């Protein structure tokens, strides 16, 4: 994988004497080992553990004024929404991270060569179908897709999986059926449209995508001789990394939730074209979990069925927390191309599906 070796060479030889490898034992877990450059922001003199401890002590001391500052209803609602997105997402994130660590450490590369069709154009639909079987949430599928690429799966197939897994799976489709008891066509339209989008994006990547857009961070711990160490290293890294970006996305979504008054939506609902665009954007901004968005779509009853289908197809594939996580796992150059393209494809496919099936 060129991106991998590429990244690995950065920061490699210039400041790492090859002989020092076996020398610094994990007693060197204190970052101020002599080899590290002295130019770090948080300094190598003060380690992050010390910073963390100081931060926590300060927070406990200033707990009262902090709580008082959060006591206005708007800020309180923001905090509630933020915390609840995090609480809701944590189990899915952990599940995804564990699975991705298993893929990264225990599943041999040769497995993917055998499991997926050799030709990339055929691997795309196969990977989309695998996404259907696996119940997951978007927060979990990003690290899984990252692991797949790392293990040599063609990016097109991994990306198709990334899009299909949260959007079409048994849990999501059941939730949709429950939320739209009077429109059984909604389940079919959602499933088909999402699958088509995942495959189109995979094939689009084959034609237009460039490997250098994906910049996967270097992960030396994955090559560790001890499988246990590699596994827990991957779990630790993915939780802090993907989890950190999840926090970013959750904060953005909480802002939208508190700041965008629902009255605005009312005026948009009356115009068919505007309503489709409005719900597509709302899906991106709200960043709901794909297991929950059907109920929210059902409650937006002033909007047309097609525009609500757009909401359901776009939401699990492009939203603020996903963009943040993708930028973290695959790099910004990738995310800023992939997310808008997915948005356009999902919007058009859903409109067509709505016109035909609803």
């Amino acid at each position, binding site marked *: 994988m060129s991106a991998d070796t590429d990244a690995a060479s950065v920061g490699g030889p210039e400041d790492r004497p090859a002989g020092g490898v076996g020398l610094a034992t994990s007693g060197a877990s204190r970052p101020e080992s002599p080899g590290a450059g002295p130019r770090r922001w948080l300094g190598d003199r003060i380690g992050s553990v010390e910073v963390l401890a100081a931060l926590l002590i300060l927070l406990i001391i200033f707990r009262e004024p902090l709580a008082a500052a959060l006591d206005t209803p708007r800020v309180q609602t923001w905090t509630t929404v933020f915390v609840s997105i995090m609480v809701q997402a944590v189990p899915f994130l952990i599940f995804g991270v564990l699975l991705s660590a298993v893929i990264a450490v225990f599943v041999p590369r040769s497995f993917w060569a055998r499991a997926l069709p050799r030709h990339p154009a055929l691997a795309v639909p196969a990977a989309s179908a695998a996404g259907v079987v696996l119940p997951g949430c978007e927060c979990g599928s990003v690290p899984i897709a990252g692991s797949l690429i790392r293990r040599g799966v063609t990016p097109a197939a991994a990306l198709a999986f990334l899009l299909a897994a949260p959007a079409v799976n048994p849990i999501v489709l059941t939730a949709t059926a429950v939320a739209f008891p009077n429109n059984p066509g909604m389940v079919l339209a959602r499933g088909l449209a999402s699958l088509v989008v995942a495959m189109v994006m995979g094939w689009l990547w084959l034609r237009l995508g460039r490997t250098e857009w994906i910049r996967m961070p270097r992960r030396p711990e994955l090559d560790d001789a001890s499988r246990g160490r590699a596994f827990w290293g991957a779990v630790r890294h993915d939780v802090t990394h993907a989890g950190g970006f999840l926090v970013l996305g959750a904060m953005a979504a909480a802002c939208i939730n508190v700041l965008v008054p629902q009255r605005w939506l009312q005026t948009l609902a009356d115009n068919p074209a505007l309503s489709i665009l409005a719900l597509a954007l709302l899906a991106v901004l709200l960043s*709901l*979990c794909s297991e929950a968005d059907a109920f929210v779509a059902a409650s937006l009853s002033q909007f047309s069925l097609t525009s609500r289908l757009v909401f359901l197809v776009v939401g699990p594939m492009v939203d603020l927390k996903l963009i943040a996580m993708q930028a973290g796992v695959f790099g910004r150059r990738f995310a800023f191309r992939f997310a808008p393209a997915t948005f356009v494809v999902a919007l058009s496919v859903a409109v067509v599906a709505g016109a035909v099936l609803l």
Partner: protein
Amino acid sequence: MNRQAQAVVLLLLGGAVLRASITDLYLRYVKEGLRPFLIAAGLLLVVAAIMTLWYELRPTRPGAPAHDDGVGHGHDGDDGSGHDHHEPRVGWLLILPVLGLLLVAPPALGSYAAEQTGTTLSAPRQSDYPPLPDGDPARVTVLDYAARALFDRGVSLGDRRVLLTGFIATGADNEPILARMVLSCCAADGRPVKLGLTGDVPAGLPNDSWVEVIGRYSDRIGRDPVNEAEIPYLEVESWRQVPAPKNQYD
């Protein structure tokens, strides 16, 4: 953020999730059904933290390769593109949910959220409603009452007395309304169900006070100024203030 600090953050996050799911705190944010998954996730986070610390503090065998440069150069992989760092700096943000759960523990959504969002009732799941539960007054949820009053035009309610629990919020024309938030997944998708009140309307209560009202079906229908949806009314016979229930969502 080096690996030990990451381990501490994971430990704190796992501890916060465990504490929230073992107490009833989690009910302010998510549905009851998520509890086992939250406990499992919290435990896994704690295990991940312990394993990280164990591998960090344990002396390595002299021959073991490849690992140590990761530590020594833990956070200086980002010489290149700026994002390609090995030890993620973004992990510092994970302190925020820990703070939110351990120090702040924000309350469940209340009247502010209810007033910002339009009342939510999706079209009926079935055309005829089952009879009310036994008892006088019959205990029903705000959601159930609203659906029967609106889509069944009160037929299944008849002349029965019903008992509902909800909180007070301000409706159109500054009149008090009875509301309850409904979750489908987490508080981010929380939507209010609102009831107008006639008869012995609870007076002098601040918003977010929880009340138990006993009343009968009223055929009066109002409109929610937020989304123009219909709001059914309840003819209140009596009411009393109650403490907030354990699960504040319907």
